[in-house]
C-alpha cells in the first residue's frame, strides 16, 4: 500500500473520561460527564453517551437523560495538558496537522512515503503511549476520514479510493452528519437513515429544507469535500470593526451593534459547517486607552445564542462603567470544523409541543391528511356517520 495524498483522522477514544477515570478510579463503570466552568458537558464516557448525553448539553439536560450520571468539573483533571502533549506527538507525523476537538486531530499525509498502514499503526501507538485507546481513519477527504475514524472503533479504517469512499459512506447512519439535532431529527422523520440516502436527495430540495449547511453536508457526503488541513497558526479568523461617530456609553446600544456584527460573522460559518473556538473583543475608550477581553469556547460553536452570551460576558469583563467606546473590534477566532452533534430525542418539552413538532415533520412525508383529530359536530343526528367530523391536529 503506497502513499498518496490522504487525510488521517486520529481520535483518542473517550479522551476526557479516560483521563478522569485514571485520576479517580471510582468513576469507572458509572455514566460520567465532565463539565466546563459554565456547566456545559465537554466530555462523556461510553455509558453516558449511550444514555443520550453529548458534549454541548447543559448539566440539567445531562441529568434529565441519565439521573444517575456522575458530573465532575473538567478542570479537576489534566485534560488540557494531555491534549497539548498529544498534539505535540501528532506534529511529528505530518507536516500539516489540525486539532479536531479534545483528543482528536486531522493529519495531511502529503509527502509521507512508505506503507500507510504502518504509519497509521505508529500514529495510534502515540495515543496508546498516553494510556488511551486510539481509532484512526484514513480517507481521501476530511469528512470521510472522520467518519472512518468514528466507525473504526478501536481500530484502523483505511478508505483508499474515491470509489471505496462512496461505498463506505453509503450505509453509514445520518447521525454522523455535522448538522444540528433538529435537522437530524427532521431527516429521521423523513425516513432518511443513511448517508447514501442523503447523498441522493435533490440538491435544491436539500437547500430549501436544510439551508446552506445541509447542502454543504450533502457535498461532503458525495465526496466533494476539499477542505484542507490547516495548521493551528494558520487557522482563519473573522472580524468586524465598528467605529462610532462619538463615544457610545450605553451598554445596550453597544451590545445591539455587536450582536448584529456577530450574526453577520456567524452566517458564513453556519453555511460552511464551521465553528469558532474563541471570541475576542477590543475597544478604544474615549480617552484613547485600548481594552481587550476574550472568551474561549470549550467546544467550538456557531450557535447564535452561545456567541451572544459570550459577547455579553466579554463586554462586561472590559469593566464597562459607562466610560464608553469610540470603536470596537469583534473577532471570532480559532475557526474550525463544527463538531458532530448527537441526535437526541429526549428534549424536555410538553407532550403536546413534542407531538406537534413530530407531526409537522411526519406530515411532510405522509401527507397532512394522515393526521387528524376527531370532533363531534352533530351528536344528536340519528345517522352515526354524521355525528363526527375531522379537523387538523392542534386547531
Amino acid at each position, binding site marked *: 500500500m503506497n502513499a498518496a495524498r490522504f487525510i488521517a483522522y486520529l481520535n483518542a477514544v473517550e479522551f476526557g473520561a479516560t483521563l478522569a477515570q485514571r485520576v479517580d478510579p471510582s468513576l469507572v463503570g458509572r455514566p460520567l460527564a465532565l463539565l466546563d466552568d459554565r456547566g456545559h458537558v465537554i466530555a462523556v464516557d461510553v455509558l453516558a453517551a449511550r444514555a443520550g448525553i453529548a458534549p454541548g448539553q447543559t448539566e440539567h439536560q445531562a441529568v434529565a437523560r441519565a439521573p444517575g450520571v456522575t458530573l465532575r468539573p473538567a478542570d479537576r483533571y489534566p485534560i488540557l495538558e494531555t491534549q497539548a502533549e498529544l498534539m505535540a506527538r501528532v506534529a511529528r507525523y505530518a507536516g500539516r496537522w489540525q486539532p479536531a476537538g479534545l483528543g482528536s486531530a486531522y493529519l495531511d499525509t502529503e509527502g509521507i512515503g512508505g506503507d500507510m498502514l504502518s504509519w497509521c499503526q505508529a500514529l495510534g501507538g502515540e495515543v496508546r503511549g498516553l494510556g488511551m485507546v486510539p481509532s484512526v481513519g484514513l480517507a481521501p477527504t476530511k469528512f470521510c476520514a472522520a467518519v472512518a475514524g468514528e466507525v473504526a472503533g478501536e481500530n484502523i479504517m483505511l478508505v483508499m479510493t474515491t470509489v471505496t469512499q462512496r461505498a463506505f459512506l453509503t450505509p453509514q447512519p445520518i447521525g454522523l452528519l455535522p448538522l444540528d439535532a433538529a435537522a437530524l431529527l427532521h431527516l429521521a422523520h423523513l425516513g432518511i437513515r443513511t448517508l447514501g440516502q442523503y447523498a441522493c436527495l435533490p440538491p435544491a430540495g436539500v437547500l430549501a429544507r436544510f439551508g446552506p449547511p445541509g447542502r454543504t453536508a450533502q457535498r461532503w457526503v458525495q465526496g466533494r469535500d476539499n477542505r484542507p488541513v490547516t495548521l493551528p497558526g494558520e487557522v482563519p479568523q473573522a472580524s468586524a470593526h465598528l467605529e462610532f461617530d462619538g463615544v457610545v456609553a450605553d451598554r445596550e446600544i453597544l451590545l445591539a451593534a455587536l450582536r448584529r456584527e456577530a450574526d453577520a460573522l456567524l452566517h458564513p460559518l453556519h453555511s460552511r459547517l464551521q465553528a469558532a473556538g474563541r471570541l475576542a473583543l477590543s475597544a478604544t475608550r474615549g480617552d484613547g486607552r485600548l481594552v481587550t477581553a476574550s472568551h474561549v469556547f470549550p467546544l467550538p460553536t456557531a450557535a447564535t445564542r452561545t456567541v451572544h452570551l459570550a459577547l455579553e460576558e466579554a463586554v462586561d469583563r472590559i469593566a464597562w462603567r459607562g466610560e464608553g467606546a469610540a470603536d470596537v473590534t469583534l473577532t471570532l477566532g480559532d475557526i474550525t470544523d463544527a463538531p458532530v452533534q448527537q441526535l437526541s*430525542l429526549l428534549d424536555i418539552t410538553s*407532550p403536546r409541543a413534542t407531538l406537534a413538532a413530530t407531526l409537522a415533520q411526519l406530515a411532510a412525508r405522509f401527507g397532512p391528511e394522515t393526521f387528524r383529530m376527531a370532533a363531534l359536530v352533530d351528536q344528536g343526528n340519528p345517522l352515526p356517520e354524521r355525528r363526527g367530523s375531522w379537523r387538523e391536529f392542534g386547531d
Partner: protein
Amino acid sequence: MSSQRRRKLDAVVAQLQLDYGPRAIRRAGPDEHAEVVGRIPTTFAELDRALGGGLPQGRLTEISGPATSGKLTLAAKVISAAHRADGDALAAWVDLSRTCDPDYLDRCGIALDRLLVVRPASLADALAVTLHLVRSNALAVLVFDRFGANANQVRAAVAEEDGMLARLPQLLSGTATAAVFLSDPREPSPALAHAAAVRISISRERWIMRDADVRGYQSLAEIVKNRHGHAGVRVAVHIIFNGTVRGDGL
C-alpha cells in the same frame, strides 16, 4: 435440602448473580428485583385485578378477538382512563381500517381534543408512523387497530411488520406509552405475539337483554400471556350501552 447443599446452592447463585446480574437467576416467589411498571387501568375491575392494575406502560399489549367482542371498547376505555388520570395525556389511534367512529369514542369517555387519529395509506406507512410516534415519547396510549385491515396488504407487508415489531419493545421501554395492538385471530401475527408483554384474547359470550332490547354484552377476556404477572386468568367483562359506554367501574 440439607444445610450444606443449600449453602453450596446459595454460593453458586450468588456467583451467577455477580457475573450475570441479579435477574439472571433467582428463587421462585416474590421478586425483589422486579421492574416497576406503570399501569393504565382498563376500567373493568376484574380485568384490572387480573392484570395487576391495568395495561403496562412502556410495553406492548395485544388484544385479539373477533368482531363485536369488545377489544375496541377495551382499548377506548384505556385511553379514557389515561385522559381522566392526567389532564395533559395524549393518545393516538392508528386507524388502518378507517373505521374509527368519533361518536363511539366520545361515548367511551375519550377527550377527543387529546386524541390523534392517524389514517395512513398503507400498512407500511402505519408501521413507520407508529415507530415515530412512540419515539416522540409524547403519548400516554397508542392504539394500533390492524383489525379489518386488507388481508393482502397485511401479507405483503409481513416482513416489514415483523421488523418493526422486533424494534418496538426496545423503543417502548424508554417511554411511558402503553401500546395496544388490536388484532384479528383469523390473521395471527407470530411476531406480534412474541413482542407483546401482555396478550388478551377476548370473545363475546352472550348479549345482555332487557325485554326485547339489546343493552350490552358479556365477553370473556383471557390473559394468554403476561410478562409482569399471572397468565391464564379468565374474567368476564360486561359492556353496557346506555348512552355512554360503561365498563364495570365507570
